């Protein structure tokens, strides 16, 4: 039974890793990523979406709230808390969705909290941007997770489709 307990104590997470090379310095990219007035310009996961409100209290323990609205008038409001803030280099924050999201103040969240790490790595005049979005909101689980996990899921999913 000991073996099994050990297995359960070192879980892997669902982890999404995205990389982009940005045509901007880390300073500029970081500012555009974190300033409400910039976020309102670029935050658009789907065409036709708008960001009526964006709030960022950019400091460790500070909170953010980004309210997105689709053309049908549905709200998708993301909220979270900053865990690490290193200007022009690195950000770590939690991510959750509000149940309703249509208000102007912080509302009740779904509670399916995840954790995001974004890194801005200088490459001459450009920036390598690396985003890691992890299913669970604990730093422990983020540090424990094996990056091979996503591959395992993909492989398995492919297998299931055969």
């Amino acid at each position, binding site marked *: 039974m000991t*073996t*099994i307990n050990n*297995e*359960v104590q*070192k*879980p*892997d*997470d*669902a982890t*999404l890793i*995205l990389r*982009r090379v*940005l*045509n*901007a310095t880390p300073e*500029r*990219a970081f500012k*555009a*990523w974190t300033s409400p007035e*910039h976020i309102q*310009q*670029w*935050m*658009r*996961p*789907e065409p036709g979406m708008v960001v009526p409100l964006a709030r960022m209290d950019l400091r460790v323990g500070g909170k953010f709230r980004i309210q997105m609205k689709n053309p049908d008038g549905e709200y998708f409001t993301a909220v979270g808390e900053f865990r690490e803030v290193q200007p022009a280099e690195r950000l770590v924050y939690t991510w959750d969705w509000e149940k309703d999201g249509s208000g102007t103040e912080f509302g009740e969240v779904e509670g399916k909290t*995840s954790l995001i790490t974004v890194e801005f790595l200088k490459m001459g005049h450009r920036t390598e*941007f690396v*985003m890691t*979005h992890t*299913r*669970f909101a604990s730093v422990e689980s983020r540090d424990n*997770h*094996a990056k091979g*996990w*996503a591959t*395992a*899921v993909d*492989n*398995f*999913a492919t*297998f*299931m489709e*055969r």
Partner: protein
Amino acid sequence: MVEYGSKVLDRTFGALADPTRRRILAQLAEGAECVTNLARPHAMSLAAVSKHLIVLERAGLVKRRRDGRVHSLALAAKPMQEAQAWLDRYRKFWEGNLDQFEKYLDQLREKESKHDDDK
């Protein structure tokens, strides 16, 4: 209906982190099997394979059916689908956002170079 909270997902991901268990799942994807048949391709004892099966069962990835003394095992793909759905949703969300973010940074740069030309 099972609520897929963090603990369940922890177990799913823990269960999938092992190559033997992934192979067992692959075998089960071909159809239900008894423990003896499952153990055959693996270079390990029946007891060791049984331990792996318990981990998979606890994660809800495998369902066991007792037919007298024979235990037959079948794949239960639900927890896996849950994790896959999470990844797919966020991949779509962030890729859409990052496309816009890149475009926006380009716009900022153009504005600034025009501004410089005006000086």
